[in-house]
């Protein structure tokens, strides 16, 4: 355990880097998700088709391959990215492609009557998306978005492989200099677990906050509680 205490400042810095990477790529992920998800829904072929290719390519290949490609292969085109930039780009684009499918699915499953009502009221397409359709879709997006964000958080550990000094990278460093493998790795496992647990809490808070009909949700929760009691 002594190594963990001695090297606590180093682990702390690693934790901060992990959080920084997660926040930056999380923000990029959201932007990409809405841009690609909405583009995928466009009725113009030349907008929806490239978005579809982007989504399939990023979902169809491994995140690690994408990260290494940005870090090792892009310099051959004369573009040398900072490790942190390459890591954030890869994470944001990869998880963004998954989240784009969430956006697309949530918007596509909106009741048609809402769009028809907007058209009847003479709303422009952009306005009806911004004012009516997207706000209504957010509750449906939140639970899968939460899953994507937890995945993103866990995948930040891969940035250690492109030399970003995150929690996993620091742990490897401390392991090779002290040899106290068990204590170090158990510590970072617990740290990652706490982080992803906090993210789950945040998501469920947001879900309650953005619920379309809070009373219905409360009733639903009461029901599921009763079912749990019944099962036990």
């Amino acid at each position, binding site marked *: 355990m002594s190594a963990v205490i001695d090297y606590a400042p180093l682990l702390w810095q690693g934790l901060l880097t992990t959080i920084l990477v997660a926040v930056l790529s999380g923000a990029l992920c959201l932007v990409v998700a809405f841009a690609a998800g909405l583009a995928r829904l466009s009725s113009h072929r030349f907008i929806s088709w490239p978005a579809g290719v982007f989504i399939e*390519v990023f979902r*169809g290949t491994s995140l690690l*391959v994408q990260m290494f490609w940005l870090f090792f292969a892009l310099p051959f085109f004369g573009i040398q990215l900072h490790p942190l930039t390459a890591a954030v780009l890869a994470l944001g684009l990869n998880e963004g492609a998954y989240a784009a499918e969430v956006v697309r699915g949530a918007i596509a499953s909106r009741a048609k009557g809402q769009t028809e009502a907007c058209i009847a009221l003479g709303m422009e397409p952009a306005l009806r998306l911004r004012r009516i359709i997207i706000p209504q879709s957010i509750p449906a997006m939140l639970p899968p978005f939460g899953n994507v964000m937890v995945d993103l958080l866990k995948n930040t*550990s891969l940035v250690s492989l492109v030399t970003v000094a995150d929690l*996993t990278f620091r742990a490897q460093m401390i392991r090779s200099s002290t040899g106290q493998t068990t204590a170090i790795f158990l510590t970072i496992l617990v740290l990652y*677990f706490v982080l992803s647990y906090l993210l789950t809490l945040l998501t469920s808070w947001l879900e309650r906050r953005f619920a379309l009909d809070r009373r219905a949700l409360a009733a639903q929760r009461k029901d599921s509680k009763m079912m749990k009691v019944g099962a036990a």
Partner: protein
Amino acid sequence: MIWDNNFAVSVIPLLLEGLWVTIKITLLGTTLAAALGLFFAILRRLAIPVLSLVVSFFVVFVRGTPLLVQAYCAFFVLPAYGISFDAFTTGVVVIGVNYSAYMAEVYRSGIQGVPKGQWEAATALSLPSVRTWGRIILPQAVRTVVPMLGNYLIQMFKDSAVLSAITVVELMATAQAIGSSSFRYLEPLTLAALLFLAVSYPASRLVNRLERRYAPQH
């Protein structure tokens, strides 16, 4: 010349060997995950006082921590306690255990989806519990679960690249080794990405079709 075609063609056989290892990891890992996941799901459902709680926590913990760190743990920590396998076996076990936690959830929802009347009928016929599970509940539960297992298979195929970090020589590690020995990363990494895509895209199309076919009939 940015892209060297001759070099690209010359590394394809090596990359295909790597792809074969990746496929082997995926198939073995999925088998392990499907079996372990079912075991965990049943243990949780049986509500054995301490054991079910431990299993529940284990499942949540595995789902909340990165695969890479789990792989490091198995690769660096376990040998200190006298448990050591070669990298390939360790990789299969780590990825199998990791995915079993996800599959346990899938089975759980499948088991929950079996109508209550089926349990009651089994009780009314006084079937022993092994037969209730084996002949009544699981066949119905697994039916709805098949397409989701397919999705996890594809996910695992892509995630297995992480195992290159613990020296498993699969597709990603092969591409990296070619890159570092020839100082040309563009061709091997691009080809590796294309190979991943060439397998996972048709596979996900297939799973989509399965999904429609196995959809519960109402």
